[in-house]
């Protein structure tokens, strides 16, 4: 049986892991490659690097991080953040990334996703969606759909810009355009440690035929369980609970296994 995936996410800025990292026994806790190796030893199923370097001129730095990580860890690597062109994708894949996550560039030009998946294969194109629940006053901005159901709007530019696009429709469209996976972040929950938006996650997961990764809000081990069960996610992504060593990946997997979730031990 296919195992549910546990994916630690590393926020990388100018080639360094950001967020205070309390790793023990690391020579350099800010080095993404060393952190990646630790996660691999603990049994992470994949790794995601989110490049939050502001300047597009500094893209070579993340390429170098991926290049070095691919020499040392032997599991799938996803890279996201600031991907704009097919050339950006090609450079990262060549450096050793397996999947590239696209967010703002997909909204700017949805055909970019189509071209990318045709050129590199759906398996390596992840569409990252930042979604925020629509409060009633904004409903008029959002296209169709009956209003008795909750709605979510997608945002771009790291969650700063609203788009007026409905998240469920967008996910379905991205699947049609060849996305191989959806990385779904709830902006309402991101950073709150209150748990994933399981309603949003379930809606998207039930609407598309491609895998969905839940993200945003995981603050406890139960939240990961809820994301996979109530949220029907295929994988869960978390940053801070692993960074701050609140749980190791091994502990998370043991907890999930006891609750009959299939995980790779």
């Amino acid at each position: 049986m296919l195992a549910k995936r546990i994916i630690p996410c590393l926020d990388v800025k100018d080639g360094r892991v950001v967020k205070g990292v309390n790793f023990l026994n690391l020579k350099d806790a800010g080095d993404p490659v060393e952190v990646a190796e630790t996660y691999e030893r603990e049994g992470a199923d994949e790794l995601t690097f989110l490049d939050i370097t502001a300047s597009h001129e500094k893209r070579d730095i993340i390429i170098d991080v991926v290049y070095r990580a691919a020499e040392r860890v032997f599991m799938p690597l996803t890279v996201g953040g600031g991907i704009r062109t097919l050339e950006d994708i090609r450079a990262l894949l060549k450096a050793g990334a397996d999947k590239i996550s696209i967010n703002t560039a997909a909204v700017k030009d949805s055909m970019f996703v189509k071209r990318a998946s045709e050129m590199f294969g759906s398996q390596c194109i992840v569409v990252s969606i930042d979604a925020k629940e629509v409060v009633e006053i904004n409903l008029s901005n959002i296209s169709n759909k009956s209003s008795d159901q909750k709605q979510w709007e997608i945002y771009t530019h790291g969650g700063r810009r609203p788009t007026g696009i409905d998240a469920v429709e967008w996910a379905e469209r991205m699947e049609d355009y060849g996305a191989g996976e959806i990385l779904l972040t709830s902006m309402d929950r991101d950073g709150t440690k209150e748990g994933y938006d399981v309603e949003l996650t379930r809606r998207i997961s039930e609407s598309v035929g491609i895998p969905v990764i839940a993200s945003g809000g995981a603050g406890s081990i139960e939240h990961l369980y809820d994301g996979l069960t109530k949220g029907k996610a295929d994988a869960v992504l978390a940053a801070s609970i692993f960074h701050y060593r609140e749980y190791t990946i091994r502990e998370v997997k043991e907890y999930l296994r006891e609750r009959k979730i299939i995980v790779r031990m």
Partner: protein
Amino acid sequence: MIAIVDYGMGNLRSVQKGFEKVGYTAVITGDPNMVMDADAIVLPGVGAFRDCMKNLEKAGLIDPIKEFINRGKPFLGICLGLQLLFTESEEFGIHKGLDIIKGRVVRFPDNLNTTRLIKIPHMGWNSVKIKKRVSIFEGIPDDAYFYFVHSYYVVPTDGDVIAMTTNYGVEFTSAIASDNLFAVQFHPEKSQELGLQILKIFGEITK
């Protein structure tokens, strides 16, 4: 020397690094002569079946690969490198493969997908059942996990080539073995220790 066949498809560097990690040097090459002269070849590949066959043809690699396998020299196919060995694939219409193994490449049934219980691509870590004990898979226990990412799977006409199967809505062939010809649907280079172990034993066979 192990040659990783470069025909413009896929993440070859990870495969090369995988061999390095277990103590073997592998060269990445698209030169038909180098492929022919190698002690062993690895055929990786991601993307669409049709594009891969087209690129192999363009690079003049089809005959060298067939000849290499006919001579009984060690061959390892990975992901699409498994599928390409088969007679034909139904991905984007029917397309002819290398026809070294009789059989077809088919898509995970769509009807499984109507309830959204089965997502396509089949992406992530799944377990294998050992159907045939062969040297290259020595030490791999039943239910060992490997990393998969694919939407199509192989159906060999002759079940004797099946070395492993995996369950994803259907039980499909996840590895084949026939003398020195080995191929896996999963990615050993992305499957941590057990994956690297396969590369290591392949390296040993090559010596």
